[in-house]
Every structure is written in structure tokens, then in C-alpha cells.
């Protein structure tokens, strides 16, 4: 949604230019007056832009470029300066490191585990909420409240939920007669536990996006289809879900990118363990950068991760562009 609107605005830049040309050629005194007022706002524009641009260049663009440069040097956190030139050495090292590939796989596995339930459940809950006549504030509270909590709070609560023998989940599972899994201690199961926590935590965001998408489905379609004898299930299947396609594509891409950027849950709940089984890419970068002090290698891993995220966004842009004419 955001990006289509943004490009729409970029399109307005060109007409604005021609407009200023016409005022320049305008002969009436009011035209000249206008021209003086509305073109060439270089100085005020600079003043208005300066505070943002200054911080933006200093703390976003600057570090981004510096990080890229650093990735080609043997930069170390303990020595000042860039250090020795490394060429593609850092990239070669990261790409041949089994730890990097393992962390990338954990991140992708986490994305696979979280994305489908976060989309399907959010959609289902939004569809159900749409049909509930009252109490929408309550559903919003229940599903959205967790989303706004800090990851550390969520992690503390779920560590307690997962505490062996004492936690609420272990009690629930054992009272149902199942053997209790070692929620966060089993290398194979820990990621599932983290995924469950994440679904609970972040579902509200997608839920709200879907609720907003549902507002845009015209009421008349439901009324018209009801007169034609369509039942609620048919309405959902044939009207609501197809008309939510745009929302779904937005939710999917935002969700994939958010899941790829996972760090907090693992860092707090499992510290990337047991035996590094839940170490995500960001934690890998954190570890080599701030535990091994190898900034150059960490910057190279950051750049590679950035490329992955960018590829997902680019893929989404291409796909939605292709869909656009049909909608």
C-alpha cells in the first residue's frame, strides 16, 4: 500500500515542473507575482529539509555507506580505523561459514513457521470479527494489545508459560494426557515454541490490516448477493476473500520481511540456543560483530542480509505491478 502511494506521488513531480514553466512565460503582472512567490524556494526548502536530512545522512545513509565500505576491510571493533583492505575476503568467509548458513536457515525456518499462521489466523479472525455485530473493541483489545508490548515483556511472560512442570502450558499439556515437550530446551522444538509466541505477539497487526481491508468491501455486494440467495459461506469465498487480495499481498510481504528480521525473541528466550539451534541471522551478525569484535565480517553479513530483504521487497513490487491492471 505504502509503496504504490509513494510512487503515485513521485509522478506528481513532473507536472509540477511544467506548471512552473507556464507561470514563467505568463505575461500578466499577477503571473509574474505568482512566479516570484512559487518558484525557486531553494533557501526556505533547505532550511525546512536541513534538520531531517542532517540526521538522516548522519545516522542512516552515512552508516549504510560506511558499513558497505567496512565490509571490504578487516575492520575490528578493538582497533580504530578501517584496518587492512580485504577485498571480497569477508564475503567469501561469511558465505563459506556453516554458522552463517545455519543462521540463515533458522531465520527462513522461523519465517516458514510464522508466516502462514499469522496470515491465515489474522484473516479468519478478521472475517469473524466483521460478522460479529458488537464487541469489536474487545476483539481489537485481545488481539492487538500483545502487539504493542515490548519483546522483553512478551519473552518474560512466555518463558514463564514454557517453564517445565510449573508453566501454564506444561500443565495444560500434561492434564490433557500428553507428554510434555521440552519447550525451549529441545533443539528441534524450540523454534516451534518461539513461533507460537510470535504468532500470539504479532497477530494483531495483520488482524488490524485485514479489518481495514474489510471496510473497503462495498456493503451492496453482500446485500445484492443475499438477494441472489448466496449464503454467508459463499459470500466469504466469492466476495470477501477475492476482494482482499491486495491486502493479503501487503500483509504477506510485510510479514515475511518482519519474520526475516527476527532477533528479540531468540536473543531473550533461548539466547540462540540450545546449541545455536535458534540463532537467527541478526544474532549471528550481533555475535561476530559484538562478541568476536569483527566489524568487517559483521558488515559483510549485514550487507548480504540486506540483499535478501531487498530481494523480497523487489519480488513483491514486481508481482503487485503485474497484478495491478487486473484489479
Amino acid at each position, binding site marked *: 500500500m505504502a509503496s504504490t502511494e509513494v510512487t503515485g506521488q513521485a509522478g506528481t513531480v513532473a507536472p509540477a515542473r511544467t506548471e512552473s514553466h507556464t507561470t514563467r512565460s505568463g505575461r500578466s503582472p499577477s503571473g509574474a507575482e505568482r512566479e516570484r512567490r512559487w518558484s525557486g*524556494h531553494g533557501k526556505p526548502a533547505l532550511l525546512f529539509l536541513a534538520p531531517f536530512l542532517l540526521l538522516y545522512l548522519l545516522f542512516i545513509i552515512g552508516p549504510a555507506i560506511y558499513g558497505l565500505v567496512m565490509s571490504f576491510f578487516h575492520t575490528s571493533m578493538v582497533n580504530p580505523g578501517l584496518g587492512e583492505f580485504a577485498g571480497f575476503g569477508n564475503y567469501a568467509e561469511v558465505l563459506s561459514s556453516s554458522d552463517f548458513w545455519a543462521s540463515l536457515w533458522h531465520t527462513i525456518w522461523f519465517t516458514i513457521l510464522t508466516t502462514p499462521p499469522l496470515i491465515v489466523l489474522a484473516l479468519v479472525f478478521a472475517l469473524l470479527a466483521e460478522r460479529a455485530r458488537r464487541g469489536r473493541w474487545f476483539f481489537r483489545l485481545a488481539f492487538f494489545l500483545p502487539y504493542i508490548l515490548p519483546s522483553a515483556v512478551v519473552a518474560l511472560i512466555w518463558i514463564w508459560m514454557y517453564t517445565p512442570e510449573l508453566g501454564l502450558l506444561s500443565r495444560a499439556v500434561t492434564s490433557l494426557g500428553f507428554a510434555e515437550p521440552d519447550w525451549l530446551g529441545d533443539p528441534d522444538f524450540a523454534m516451534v515454541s518461539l513461533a507460537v509466541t510470535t504468532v500470539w505477539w504479532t497477530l494483531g497487526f495483520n488482524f488490524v490490516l485485514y479489518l481495514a481491508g474489510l471496510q473497503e468491501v462495498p456493503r451492496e455486494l453482500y446485500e445484492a448477493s443475499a438477494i441472489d440467495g448466496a449464503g454467508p459461506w459463499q459470500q466469504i469465498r466469492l466476495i470477501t476473500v477475492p476482494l482482499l487480495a491486495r491486502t493479503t499481498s501487503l500483509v504477506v510481504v510485510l510479514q515475511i520481511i518482519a519474520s526475516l528480521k527476527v532477533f528479540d525473541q531468540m536473543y531473550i528466550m533461548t539466547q540462540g540456543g540450545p546449541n545455536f539451534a535458534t540463532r537467527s541471522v541478526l544474532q549471528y551478525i550481533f555475535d561476530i560483530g559484538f562478541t568476536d569484535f569483527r566489524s568487517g565480517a559483521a558488515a559483510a553479513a549485514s550487507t548480504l542480509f540486506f540483499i535478501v530483504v531487498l530481494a523480497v521487497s523487489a519480488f513483491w513490487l514486481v508481482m503487485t505491478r503485474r497484478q495491478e491492471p487486473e484489479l
Partner: protein
Amino acid sequence: MAILANKDVQPLTAAQARHHAATADRRTRLFNRCCTGVLIAFALLWLVPLAWALDTSLKPNGETVNPTWVIENPTLASFQTLLAQGDIINWYAASFIISALSAAGTVVTASLAAYALSRMRFRYRWLTFWIILMGIMVPRQVLVVPQFQELGSINLLNTYWAVILPAIPIAIAVFVFKQFFDGIPKELDEAARIDGAGFFHIYRRIVLPLARPAVSAVTIFSFVWAWNDLLWPLIALSNPEIMTIPVGLATVQGTYGIRYADTMASAILGALPLVLVFLLFQRRIVEGIAGTGLKG
């Protein structure tokens, strides 16, 4: 409408239509009631972890091993311990200072920049626009290593500024403002300019007051993002005196050992300010997400 061109939907007579509508209506009402029931069940399920955390925090530490929701000796002892110990008060102060200044900085700088992009003509406007647009694509997380070097070299690490300054330039905020400003009729500015008002006056007195929804959305979101951020503050702040709530909680996590009531009380205290923000601004937050797809 093409979607409705389904093979089992045929043209109807008026009587048939009325009959169909009546049965459909009854079916729909029943269906909707079932939906509500199912959703209530899920909503309650979603609230269980929070309720359980609150329940635990009100038990004495010794009682938390009881597998029951009933609290035999309800007590605020855990909260008292934490508040007396004082760490959490420091973290509150740090989180509040950092989030408030970050949010204020974002609102002021982003709205000024957006006003220039929306209303002024100048060379390199197009370039400026695209440079800021690029910023949306860069995940903050990939910048932590160079940012650490940079802020270390100017001796700002372990100060509030190390967290506040990088949190201010949020590219998407500029676009939220620009989009809103573009929707405000330019005739308003023009009229004011004929009366001799300068750009800043128009921005401050006309455009900004009309953009209240954008201002509040950006304020709330930048505040919440700054409050909840973990990775960068964790790296930049190692002094326990100035840690933010998430960093503090993540750092002491585990040190409470088996004092589960204390742990849950710290979680509840950490959640409290944001629960308040949510209850106060529920509508604005939801509208903000719906309108822009802002995601942290």
C-alpha cells in the same frame, strides 16, 4: 461484480427473491452468531497469557508453584520489591526520556521536511525525494555495526543521545506527512501568502493544525517504536543506570531465578505504560496502521 457471475445464481422472480432473502437473512444471522462465539473463544484464549502473568505477579513467590488461578494470599509484595530496588524506575526514566525526545524529534523534523517536499519548488527536489524513499528500504538492524563505530568515535555511546539521534530520522514518517499535506488544499496557503505570511507561519499555523491525524499517528508510532526497540539500545547502552525497559528486562531476565512472581511483576510493570498508551489511543493506533501499513 464479475465475481457474482456464478453459475448457480439465476435471474429470479420477485417472490422467489423475497423468499431467498428471508432464508438467507436467517441463515446469515445464525452464521454471524456462531462467528461471534468462535471469536470470543479465541479472544479469551489470546488474553490467557496476560491474565496468567497478572495472576502470577499477585501471588507470593512461594505460591507460584501452585498450579491454580486461585490466589490464596494476594499480595503486591513483588511490585513493592521491584520498586524499592529501584532499577525499574531508572529504566522507566530512560525509556520515557528516549521515547519522548525521539518522537518529538521525528514529528518536528519529518513534518518540516514533508512540508518542503509538498509545497516548495527547488532544484534536486526529485533527488531529495528518492534519497528519503531509499531509507524506507534499509532495515535499521543492518546498520548497528557501523552505527556503533560512528557513535563510539564521537563518544556518544552509553548516553541517551546514542539512542535518540538515530531514532529521529524515520523516512516513512516523511511520507505519511507528505501524503497528508498533499491532501490539504493549496488555496489555503496561497491565500495566506497573499496576506504576507511566510512559509514557516503557514506550516505552523495552517498546515500542521490541519494535519492533526498525521501528527498523532507519527507521534504514537515513533514513541512506541522507540520504547520497544531492543537491538540498538542493547548495543548502545551497557550502563544499567540508563538502560531502557526492554534492555533492562532482557538483561536481568533469569537473575530472578525461581522468583516467578517477581519476574511477572517486572513484566507487568514493563507492559503498563504501553497498555495505557494503547487504551488511550486505541483508535488512532488502529487507524494509523490501517492507513499506512506502518510496521516496526
